[in-house]
């Protein structure tokens, strides 16, 4: 629901790097989006198109890597991927696992620029 503001925050990060490195055009931007981040990838792509119009990142592709939820199960002493909509529960032993290892990411990873 806050994809547009996330797209604007993302654009800000991209613009800072472009300015620093003297980059005039951006072909693609890579991001990592966690399953718990509350971000819908399609809505983010749509917002990206709107946010970047007329900027250094205009017409750039947004490449989203989805990061599934992974928690740390203390009973199993291992990382586990909970089943969808089961909360933060270990799929092997059923215990609650409040430690989120992955799945909260909203990360600007890299961008592709012309040689």
């Amino acid at each position: 629901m806050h994809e547009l503001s996330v797209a604007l925050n993302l654009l800000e990060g991209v613009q800072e790097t472009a300015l620093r490195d003297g980059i005039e055009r951006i072909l693609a931007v890579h991001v990592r989006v966690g399953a718990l981040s509350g971000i819908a990838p399609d809505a983010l792509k749509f917002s990206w198109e709107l946010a970047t119009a007329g900027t250094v990142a205009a017409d750039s592709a947004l490449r989203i890597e989805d990061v599934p939820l992974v928690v740390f199960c203390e009973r199993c002493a291992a990382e586990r991927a909970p089943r969808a909509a089961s909360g933060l529960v270990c799929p092997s032993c059923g215990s609650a696992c409040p430690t989120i290892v992955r799945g909260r990411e909203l990360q600007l990873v890299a961008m592709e620029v012309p040689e």
Partner: protein
Amino acid sequence: MKYRVVQIEQSILRKNAALADALRARFAATHTLVVNLLSSPGSGKTTLLQETLARTCDRYRVGVLVGDQATDNDARRLSQYGAPVRQITTAAECRLDADMIGKALEDWGAGPFDVLFIENVGNLICPAEYDLGEDVRVVVFSVTEGEDKPLKYPLAFNTSHVVAMTKMDIAQAVGFDRDAAYASIRQVNPGVTVVELSARTGAGMDDWIALIERHIAAKAPPREASLR
């Protein structure tokens, strides 16, 4: 087209994180406890805050920031207790962020406070992502909402320190399954403090106020803390 890759690796929300850290430093300097209240629309945040103000304003310097997408109805409801209240109208935004809090504080001119309550926009998804520099995050969970709400919105419940279980006076009438609700909460946050209350009847309000007062005392300057 031939291209090269520029590695960046930074959080998209890093600006919010930096602003939240600046707010935390500012509130540490004034010994202000900051409580961020999250919930779905209609869970009773404003009523809980009204009853909280009625029980704290005489003893503490209390401030309230209240976020809504539209209207200042909540601010008007809250402003009858003597504490300064400021509305933040977020328009299109579905949550408060650290920048909005900083700007509201700048032109508000109120404070310093012993405790600042921030009533977030009614929404359990987006506000969970945004650090506001708070000490205590409270998720307000009413008995009318469905016992599995924590499983549907795990991040909001996982990142909260306290669950305020509201509208307990009508729990029976709406067939609230208390055990199932606790089981859901424990599945996403086993150690979280749960306070059952009814702001309308006052039941459980003493426990809630005692909890807030413990946090205020913990944040107070050392000398004052020893006097209390």
